[in-house]
């Protein structure tokens, strides 16, 4: 047919990846804190900072899957908590550390899958279902240990390679948790953008009814993504246990906002059909730099919150300006 326009060969011009704008926002922020306090820029400091926010980043990387599908999970903080409790109590009960870890992750997966089953069978958005299950998981965690902390103190446990590696007793140039989380990010990114599973997730988020008519098993995929979210939260839980050496009843309770913020600052819209795993990593680092930067510069506690807010606005503003520039440039 003659309708094909003359230049329809795929003109591959060089395009900046969509994460560029958030990355610039991150660099600007690091630059500002570094300009005020040059020690901030020391690699060891930046690595430590990244390590402290690694678990939140990991979960942000996975919540991108849910957001891409047009869903949101409110319960993952408590899944993290209960998974860590399961792993911790198992260790204390004498189960070998690695097996206890697997148990913790399995518990997370089961909780996630339960969310998925409920959302599919009750035909309700995940956000509504997890409004309930969040309390359920928290409640079970409270009951399991009678509102106390779970602290494995036995030397056999605390000297285990898992705790030593994560707890920082083994010296590595780059914190081990960082390496692990970066690897996880590669896997998450490839899964979302290079596999059929990921394609299906984005298709569901983009137009659920069209996805169903295209033969995509939408219910199955939903359950799988929820289970994955649970599994990753479970991994987050055992990493937390290894990192901190203990789980408090409140662990995970404050995670919702920073994690979701990381994902959306990173560029994943809430509306579904699109998502960037790497963006969420950068978003998590932005959240981290803001959190630590404020104390690093030495801003008074009373002023800290205001400054945090202004910097968040600034960060999303930079991102937005860069984005608009890029659009113009096309």
């Amino acid at each position, binding site marked *: 047919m003659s309708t094909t326009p003359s230049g329809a060969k795929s003109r591959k011009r060089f395009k900046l990846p969509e994460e560029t704008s958030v990355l610039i926002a991150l660099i600007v922020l690091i630059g500002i804190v570094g300009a005020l306090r040059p020690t901030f820029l020391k690699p060891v400091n930046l690595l430590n900072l990244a390590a402290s926010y690694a678990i939140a980043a990991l979960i942000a990387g996975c919540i991108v899957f849910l957001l891409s599908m047009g869903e949101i999970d409110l319960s993952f903080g408590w899944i993290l908590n209960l998974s860590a409790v399961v792993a911790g109590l198992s260790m204390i009960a004498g189960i070998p550390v690695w097996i206890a870890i697997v148990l913790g992750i399995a518990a997370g997966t089961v909780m996630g899958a339960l969310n998925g089953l409920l959302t599919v069978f009750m035909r309700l958005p995940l956000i509504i279902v997890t409004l309930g299950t969040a309390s359920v998981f928290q409640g079970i965690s409270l009951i399991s240990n009678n509102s106390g902390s779970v*602290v494995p103190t036995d030397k056999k446990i605390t000297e285990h390679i898992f705790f030593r590696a994560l707890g920082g007793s083994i010296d590595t140039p780059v914190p081990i948790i960082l390496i692990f989380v970066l690897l996880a990010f590669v896997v998450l990114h490839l899964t979302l953008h290079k596999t059929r599973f990921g394609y299906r997730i984005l298709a569901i988020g983009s137009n659920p009814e069209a996805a169903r008519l295209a033969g995509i098993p939408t219910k199955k995929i939903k359950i799988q993504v929820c289970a994955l979210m649970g599994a990753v939260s479970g991994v987050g839980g055992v990493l937390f246990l290894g990192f901190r050496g203990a789980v408090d009843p409140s662990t995970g309770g404050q995670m919702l906002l920073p994690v979701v913020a990381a994902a959306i600052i990173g560029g994943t819209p809430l509306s579904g059909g699109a998502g960037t795993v790497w963006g969420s990593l950068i978003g998590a680092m932005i959240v*981290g730099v803001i959190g630590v930067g404020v*104390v690093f510069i030495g801003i008074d*506690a009373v002023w*800290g919150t205001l400054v945090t807010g202004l910097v968040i606005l600034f960060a999303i503003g930079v991102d937005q300006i860069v984005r608009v520039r890029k659009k113009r440039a096309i």
Partner: protein
Amino acid sequence: PAQAKEKKLTIGFVVHVVGNPFIQQIIDAAKMAAKDLGVTIKVTGPAGAEGDAQLTAAQNLAAAGVDGIATSVPSASMVNGLNAIIKSGIPVVQFNGLGEGVNGPYVGEKSTQSGRILGKMVLDKIGGTSAKGSVIVGNCYPGFPVLENRQKGVLESLAKASGVKIVGPSDVKVDAAANFAAWQGLLAATPDALAMVGLCAPDVESIGKVNKAASNTTTIGAGYDLTTGNLEALANGSAHISLGQTPFIQGYLPVYILVDSIRKGIKINKPGFIDAGTEVVTATSVTEPFKLPALTFAKLQAMAKSQAKTRAYYEPVVKGYIKDWKKNLKPIADESA
């Protein structure tokens, strides 16, 4: 008074947050008191610390017909509501968090004074009034009254050394991971700091971890609460001082006061203060208030795990200080003295 004894009393016990190990120790003590006194106890509290939800819980206990209420009062906005309950004839005893103007006695630490103690101990460790250098202070929840008081006391003591420069107080956040990151950042920003002083439960543990990671520093770590993690940090030498708030007394005494006053028909509808004391813990010594026998670190850890041992240890206090609560009731101004 005699007929009051016949009816089995029900006491409502309202905490400001459930799922906090320290608060749980208070709850456990309250339940021991209830058992000792033969009364029913109903424990409740909101999942996230918020005064309004807590007040609502207290009001509902009142509506459900409890005979007395013990509650922490972290928020000034609870005061009027609690006074309304008191006015309707249900006595209220406060613990752990003081609401200014509540018409009932308060059981808790002298928050400003405990801050002073902590500040002084830190100062002693870094060279006394001639100390020269920076001390980092972190507040995990700016605006929380008890913390503001502690902060005031700490700064007051540290001000005695003119060479000490205060870094902060910075907002170090409650969430464990964020708290750790904040302390890590603070120390990286001021690597030659003489001491790090926190005001909340997660601080000592975080400071310990930060200290341990930055192996070459000799920064003193100090803060509050005797959680398992904090005691670990003291034990392995990565942190140095932690003050305890005697959760046993803060839980046991309010229930005792309520039951005793109801049974004996004593009116307690006036502000008042009963000192719950402050425990001072370092790796080498555990100083308990009320002339209780000195504890070793190991004993303290064992007690944290066994309610029976805890109860046995505090027997003298229950028989003495607690039984004589009326005698120890001081004007409320003593709290912040």
